């Protein structure tokens, strides 16, 4: 049941907001491209899971959250973490299993959390068993309500993940309890090598929500503003106590499951068709066509993003590995293992000086 609104939430985005969206998507791709180089150099300890072609939906959906909201990203949602202010260096140190990584070398890629006691963005990391983040983030919403915090919890699920029991249990519980949860369901066409047709007999991934009485809509996942609009509507419903929503995004995983995957099961014409719909290129063209930015403006952002990604990678590369004698610490409380993740603001946020989606009275003050 798509929600109809007379105006699009994205109408309220300022020029700087729109450029910030572009910057976040660009930075996400630049970080991953730098990671691909590190992977080929054998400096990434485990696998590399690219979000190529999906950067736009990760960034645009998370951008609908307020800064202090909670997000739980999957391995292909680097963009969501970048929007929430996770410093890129943390991601590089995770992939390279450094001793100063958010998990001190204990877990990989985006498997980390940032849960401050009060204030600041909340990030809950995934486990490899898909689906569990839905009930866990429902619980974050429940905990927030009990603590009197008007917080929204957002998480992601792929077409494969929507087949798990945990997804269904979490969705149903969130619906029954009317929890402030937003689920972004990504139809990126493959779960490892399994096509969506072998995953569900539904025409659209967002129809999964129908069974729970959860409002849902399907958007073009490679149209950043469309994703933002749908996500923003869902976030507002959650914030106002109207319960969970699901946003289905139609997108494409442009690489294999991980870099080792030869993608033999993917058709070339399909990939070519989706390449023409690249979310960052489309958004770039939109910004130029609508005269929000010039090619020169965007080239400057591109250069800034690339330089930042490379500088952060270099910093991470110089970090030490964990000390082997730390291996047994921190299974239980009392071992004093409390990693910290640095939260950073984008240049656009610095310039704006106010939190994202601040009430009008605060904005511009």
């Amino acid at each position, binding site marked *: 049941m798509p929600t109809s609104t007379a105006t699009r939430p994205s109408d309220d985005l300022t020029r700087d907001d729109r450029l910030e969206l572009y910057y976040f998507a660009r930075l996400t791709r630049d970080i991953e491209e730098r990671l691909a180089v590190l992977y080929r150099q054998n400096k990434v300890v485990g696998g590399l899971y690219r979000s190529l072609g999906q950067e736009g939906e990760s960034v645009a959906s998370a951008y609908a959250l307020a800064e202090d909201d909670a997000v739980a990203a999957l391995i292909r949602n680097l963009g969501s973490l970048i929007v929430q202010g996770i410093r890129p260096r943390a991601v590089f140190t995770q992939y390279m299993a450094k001793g100063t990584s*958010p*998990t001190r070398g*204990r*877990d990989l890629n985006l*498997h*980390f*959390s940032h*849960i401050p*006691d009060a204030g600041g963005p*909340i990030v*809950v*990391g995934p*486990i*490899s*068993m898909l689906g*569990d983040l*839905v*009930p*866990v*983030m*429902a*619980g*974050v*919403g*429940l*905990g*927030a309500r*009990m*603590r009197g*915090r008007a917080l929204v*919890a957002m998480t992601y699920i792929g077409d494969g993940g929507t087949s798990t*029991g*945990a997804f269904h*249990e*979490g969705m*149903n*519980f969130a619906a*029954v*309890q009317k929890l402030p949860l937003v689920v972004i369901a990504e139809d990126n066409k493959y779960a490892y090598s399994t096509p969506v047709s072998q995953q569900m007999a539904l025409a659209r991934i967002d129809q999964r929500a129908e069974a729970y009485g959860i409002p849902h809509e399907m958007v073009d996942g490679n149209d950043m503003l469309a994703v933002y609009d749908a996500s923003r509507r869902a976030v507002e419903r959650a914030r106002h106590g109207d319960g969970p929503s699901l946003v289905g995004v139609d997108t494409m995983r442009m690489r294999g499951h991980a870099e080792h995957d030869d993608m033999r099961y993917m058709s070339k014409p399909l990939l070519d068709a989706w390449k023409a719909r690249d979310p960052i290129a489309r958004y770039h063209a939109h910004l130029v066509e609508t005269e929000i930015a010039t090619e020169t403006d965007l080239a400057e952002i591109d250069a800034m993003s690339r330089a930042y990604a490379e500088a952060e990678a270099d910093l991470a590369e110089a970090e030490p590995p964990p000390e082997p004698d730390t291996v047994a610490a*921190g*299974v*239980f*409380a*009392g071992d004093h*293992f*409390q*990693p910290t993740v640095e939260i950073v603001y984008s240049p656009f946020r610095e310039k704006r000086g106010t939190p994202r989606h601040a009430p009008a009275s605060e904005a511009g003050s």
Partner: protein
Amino acid sequence: MAEMTYLEAIRQGLAEEMARDERVYAIGEDIGAYGGAFKVTEGLLERFGAERVIGTPISETAIIGAAIGSAYLGMRPVAELQFIDFVACCFNILTNFAAKSRYRWGAGVPMVVRGPCGGGVSGGPFHSANPEAHFLHTPGLKIVEPSTAYDAKGLIKAAIRDDDPVLFLEHKFLYRRVKDEVPDADYVVPIGQAVVRRPGDDVTVVTFGAMTYTALEAAEQLAQRDVEVEVIDLRTLSPLDHETVLQSVAKTNKVVVLHEAQRTGGIGAEIAAAITERGFEHLDAPPVRLASLDTPVPYNPGLEAAFRPGVEQIVAAVGQLVEY
């Protein structure tokens, strides 16, 4: 001091913690108006309201997931599994999400997962489990199982105040059959401490839960034959209190490890191995394991009695050790 049942002690401990700390709340199936399948949470809804006594769909993974997420936000959830057998339904989120969270990220999950375990009530294959061995092998989880009302109250309070996930096993055979003195004043029974229930010099019996009473009954019979059995009630199953066990074995030099769960890969194997490794020079005989048969738990009372270890087997095993 007031005399109360094991079940009332758990309820009182939970209610006192909810009154003491507004972050503590209860979540589970049928725990509200109905008061839970065994009535452990009876009266809590009326006292604390639906915000803090949350009835859920039949979704164990959602229950544990909700508990984990809310714990990240500073809450102290007490999740009820209607029968502990149903922990199998949420094994993944409990062992992979909750138990590994602190080690991976430093994010603790102060959560209690409680539920009725154990047999002796013709519960059949799906309402009689003693699942401790599955979770003994899960770093990051603590496991407790009280045998008295005093310990039930003291341990539920300790579990709720603990900063890590605790699996709280309530032996359903004891719910209304065991009654003892419980202090009025606030107290906790620390996690990780076993207790000697009956002192003796001849043979040590290490056990816990309802089997504690079976062991005490056997000890009573053996005393009439001038065999003095020392009965140790572990109370906490993870982390194990090896010191108390080893001290006893150093004195008696002979040991029976007794539990109600199936024998192969059971907690008794771990305890016997630890005694052998760390107390070999004290042993005058091989440690003996007494446990249930390696079958599902059968329904018929006669079959179940044949499945589980009883007083007779304990008396026989101790007798053989004395003769060894």
